[in-house]
């Protein structure tokens, strides 16, 4: 039996439902020395802003039970350098490149989307309205449904590329935000970004992270993420890229059965650099063993 793993995420055709979570996979070459990037369904690159950002002071990460806090602070070379220096490498691969963008203002998001729309080799734009680690923008847009909608509308006006809105779990109703960004013209949704958290070093009596607070990721957040996918699947008709603590095919299947069309692997890459490939192989094996011909048959099947 041959099984179909291919999915369509708002116009982005993926040969399998497994992609990478922004900020955990660099721009490709970092893990390209360990795995064959062509096997991925798509790649989502590190968050990009209009101009270069230094990022936050160290320590930028702290390990927590079955998870980690990060406050990288969107260190990146800016969109122009991204296009001239990082994108050419990715054009050598047969996979959609999804660029994650962040801005301080609605205008920033609009400009970024316009610039990426004209760049060659971009398969989609993931709009980060949920970063907990920068002073302005980010989460400020994602936590209010109306501002979230406004950002997506501005991005939509600037590009014909597929637009994915990346949602924050740090909200009262994630479904309410999902409804607004759907109305504003998003083609797909991704969730969840990290949960705002912090850790204290009891020896120094100070916060561990240089930025004080950071975003929690890894297996610890998985139940929160599965719940978010479940709720949003019921609220809107858009395809969902599910993420949050996925380490193996079984974890990925939970998200798919909750309603995710695709999944992204983040923190798990740090622990097992082959996590994405193991998950792709594991999904295929599960389908063969359970007589599932098409992965699309089981999207949202737990509902």
């Amino acid at each position, binding site marked *: 039996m041959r099984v179909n793993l291919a999915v369509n995420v708002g116009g982005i055709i993926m040969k399998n439902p497994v992609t990478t979570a922004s*900020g*955990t*996979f*660099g721009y490709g070459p*970092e*893990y390209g*020395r*360990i795995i064959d990037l062509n096997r991925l369904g798509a790649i989502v690159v*590190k968050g990009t802003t209009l101009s270069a950002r*230094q*990022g936050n002071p*160290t*320590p*930028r*990460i*702290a*390990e927590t*039970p*079955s*998870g*980690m806090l*990060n406050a*990288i602070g969107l*260190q990146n070379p800016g969109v122009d350098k991204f296009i001239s220096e990082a994108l050419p490498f990715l054009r050598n691969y047969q996979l959609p490149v999804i660029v994650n963008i962040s801005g301080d203002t609605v205008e920033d998001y609009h400009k970024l989307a316009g610039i990426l729309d004209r760049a060659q080799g971009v398969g989609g734009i993931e709009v980060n309205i949920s970063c907990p680690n920068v002073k302005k923008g980010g989460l400020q847009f994602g936590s209010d449904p109306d501002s979230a909608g406004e950002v997506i509308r501005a991005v939509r006006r600037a590009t014909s590329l597929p637009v994915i809105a990346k949602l924050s779990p740090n909200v009262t109703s994630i479904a309410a935000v999902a409804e607004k960004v759907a109305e504003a013209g998003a083609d797909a949704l991704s969730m969840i970004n990290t949960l705002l958290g912090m850790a204290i070093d009891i020896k120094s009596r100070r916060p561990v992270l240089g930025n004080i607070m950071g975003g929690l990721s*890894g*297996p610890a957040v998985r139940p929160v993420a599965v719940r978010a996918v479940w709720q949003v699947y019921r609220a809107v008709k858009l395809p969902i890229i599910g993420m949050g603590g996925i*380490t193996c095919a079984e974890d990925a299947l939970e998200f798919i059965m909750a309603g995710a069309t695709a999944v992204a692997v983040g*923190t798990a*890459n*740090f*622990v097992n*650099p*082959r996590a994405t490939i193991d998950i792709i192989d594991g999904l295929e094996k599960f389908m063969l063993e359970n007589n599932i011909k098409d992965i699309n048959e089981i999207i949202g099947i737990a509902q």
Partner: protein
Amino acid sequence: MIYCHKFRILKNEETIPGHRLMIVDAPGISAAAVPGQFLHLRCSDSTDPLLRRPVSIHRVERDKGLAHMLYRVAGRGTALLAGKMPGEYLDVMGPLGKGFTLPLPGERVAVVGGGIGAAPLFFLVEELIRECPPNNMVSFFLGAASASQLPPASVLHSPGLEVHTATDDGSAGYHGTVTALLESRIDSGPAGFDRIYACGPAPMLRSLVRMAGSLGIPGQVSLEERMGCGVGACLSCACKIKDRSADGFLYKHACTDGPVFDMREVYYES
């Protein structure tokens, strides 16, 4: 080539109190590694503790295909490592990072290690001895809190090698810091150095970089920062490197741009 799989542990025993030597059967790694590079170790199969732990390559035995690590039992991850028995397998990723660059022919070299920072320098000293003499003179300066904490340098058999020790409590060698010991050797005349290599705690490196700068001696230091991925993907392991920008520095990454950096490039706040 980055290896990433399970390697067999041949030895894992206490050498000095609180420190252990682990030897893994890893021919590919021992053949490819250069001094200053590190391995990223998964200490448990569970998700807690989750992240890998970076540990330097202490020595290699290329003829036998072995890689050595010398580690201090510092917290949960290294305590789990300490519990592994010979014959068990350890998930190792590496070799990672940029190592030291060798000196020019004829240069007189000081290699300076503080505490567990000495670990990667054994590999460097062995490589210097193998690659450089008879032209280069190598002096190895080792500092620790007390005599019992000094890693034994007797494993480095070489007639050309001078070993000097310093302890904070004066229980062995020079009474004081290893930086002060080096400074005293330079002050006392003939023992000048053309190049310095160092690894150790941040305050030690800071004073060493300052001293080398004022004496105009070039060199390299190996820096430590908390790591996630180990391959340049997560941007956790940021180190401040001098730059002409308004901030005066930019962040480079210990796992890929380093951990070894040119002393003159490292940025310290005044």
